[in-house]
């Protein structure tokens, strides 16, 4: 009998989960769509996300049409009628290219989601390891601080911080972040969600630190740092991976909500959230401008959530087996090689 690492077994379980894999592929496709933004903008649409075309016309099938009509209404989707220009129409009275904005908006939304989730997980790992390992007053202090953050309604705290920093910017030592930088919402979202991940990490560390392998490390003379990062961290890694994926989904949702309220991503940057906010003002005449960015956001978050589910099932085989037994599709572990 060959022995396999738990990571390999998890990978094999994930590979068998077709639903999770197809949603993972959907996420990759959306990410590629967003990454292709500069290519589409320069080679197909011949514009930039913030370039206005208010007074211009486009040629559609030999006929000149105004990008923005006299009443300020934007042109609708032209698909490939103008060689890819205004593929999805213009975005309002400024006459910016909706398709280009949608792609660039996706870049911002994904970047904010992934980076904020990284910050959340890093903070949570650090705090969880510290309070689970040291217990006592360290644990107590961290728990009190988290209680305070917890007692805030998330949106309200996010909005208050967003507004404060959007106006004032942020100065941490030598690092200066201006108010319209995307790092403002990233830091806020990463910080606001940290308590929700810290608690479960702390719980796992508390349980793990009583086990023999920690005792063995102590008897070998390992210091706190080596025990925390060399012994405990690898054992909570699978939990962290799952929480990272879930955090990406939640961060993207919070970003869009803050941006919708005007306290998230600031111009000149565009995100799907700011696009929904701008589209909402024209919802009765051009509902597509609201529908499109929201649908992209929903699809992306859905893809991440389903994939995260698959990851959790793969990394925690007990949970998966329970479900399979009850679904009557028991599959003996490790027979297929």
């Amino acid at each position, binding site marked *: 009998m060959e022995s396999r690492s738990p990571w390999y077994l998890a990978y094999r379980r994930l590979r068998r989960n077709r639903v999770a894999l197809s949603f993972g592929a959907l996420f990759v496709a959306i990410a590629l769509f967003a990454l292709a933004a500069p290519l589409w903008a320069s080679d197909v649409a011949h514009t930039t996300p913030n370039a206005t075309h208010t007074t211009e016309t486009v040629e559609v099938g030999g006929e000149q049409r105004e990008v923005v009509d006299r009443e300020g209404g934007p042109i609708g989707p032209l698909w490939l009628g103008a060689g890819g220009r205004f593929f999805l129409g213009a975005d309002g009275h400024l006459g910016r290219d909706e398709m280009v904005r949608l792609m660039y908006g996706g870049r911002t939304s994904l970047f904010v989601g992934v980076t904020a989730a990284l910050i959340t997980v890093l903070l949570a790992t650090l705090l969880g390891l510290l309070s689970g390992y040291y217990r006592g007053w360290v644990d107590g202090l961290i728990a*009190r601080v988290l*209680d*305070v953050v*917890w*007692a*805030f*309604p*998330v*949106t*309200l705290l996010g*909005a*208050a*911080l967003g*507004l*404060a920093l959007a*106006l*004032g910017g942020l100065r941490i030592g030598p690092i200066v972040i201006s108010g319209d930088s995307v790092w403002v919402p990233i830091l806020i979202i990463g910080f606001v969600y940290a308590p929700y991940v810290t608690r479960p990490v702390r719980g796992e560390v508390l349980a793990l630190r009583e086990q023999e392998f920690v005792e063995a490390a102590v008897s070998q003379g390992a210091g706190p740092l080596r025990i925390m990062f060399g012994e405990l961290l690898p054992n909570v890694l699978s939990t962290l991976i799952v929480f990272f994926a879930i955090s990406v*989904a939640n961060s993207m*949702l919070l970003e*869009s*909500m803050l941006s*919708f*309220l*005007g*306290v998230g991503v600031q111009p000149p940057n565009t995100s799907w*959230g700011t696009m*929904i906010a701008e589209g*909402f003002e024209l*919802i*009765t005449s051009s*509902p597509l401008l*609201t*529908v499109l960015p*929201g649908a992209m*956001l*929903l699809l992306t*978050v*859905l893809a*991440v*959530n*389903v994939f995260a*589910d698959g990851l959790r099932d793969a990394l925690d085989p007990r*949970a998966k087996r*329970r*479900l399979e*037994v*009850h*679904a*009557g*599709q028991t599959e003996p572990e490790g027979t297929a090689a």
Partner: protein
Amino acid sequence: MARFAVRRLAGAAAVLFAVSVLVFVIFNVIPNADPARQLAGRTANPQLIASITREWGFDDPLPEQYLRMMQNILTGKVISYETEENVDERIVEGIPETFSLAVGAAAIWMFFGILFGYLSAVRAGGPLDRGLTVLAVTGISMPVFWLAAILLNYLAYELELLPAGGYVGFTENPLEWAQHLILPWVTLAIVYVGLYSRVLRSNMLDAMGADYVRTARAKGLSEHRVMTRHVLRNSLIPIVTLFGLDFGALLGGVIVVEGIFNLNGVGQYAYESLINLDLPPIMAITLFGAFFIVLFNALVDVVYAFLDPRVKLGSPAR
């Protein structure tokens, strides 16, 4: 029990104190927010601003300003810098709308969350379970404000099936009250329906493997009775906990939904105050929201001990 209550109260007070200090600090580091300028209005001149600064004590040390603000909030005398109306009165005016919104949404999400979760677990692996799981994950992934905007546009503006926002008091006309609130209720509830049905499903699947369920079956109880009386009842305990925490924190979600459906409640007031950089209402509303979160946290502990006799109050917290 008494010692537990005292400790719990002291903890809650400490958290509320910290929350208020934090909000005060956040808004006193904003350089653009000079309350004296705000109070002086459009016709501001340096002398007026200086005299307002002196009169309202904006040049006093910050701890002193903080204490005065808190005293005013707690005694109902706090005044908005932007509109100069009484903040506490304005919050009280908004409560019926926010309360109607929150309670209706909570009823919807508890009912459908439990129903869907139960059906999913009982039919685990089948087509019904799969369909409900798709619905649940979609609900969890939904940008709420976007759904609100879409529903408002298609159901209210285009098809004119429902009123486009606004509020009618329950005592004035219960039918119109419900008609006006149905869209806000649904949008607010949808995320939680998804979340709760999934949590309940996995709790029930866990419980189905437990010894007491085997015992219940061995006693010859009907499948229905085993599921409702034994599996469902025990699986609902974590749902109650979750409900307490989520309901207490609902003020956050209410902000966007109230804004889109034009409900003039506490959430809308919070949003207006944020945009106007109006510190007194922001402080008061944040405390109001935090108060409910802390209150429901404590309630959850008590209810939990009541539902699960193994939990003893006063033992070290979780």
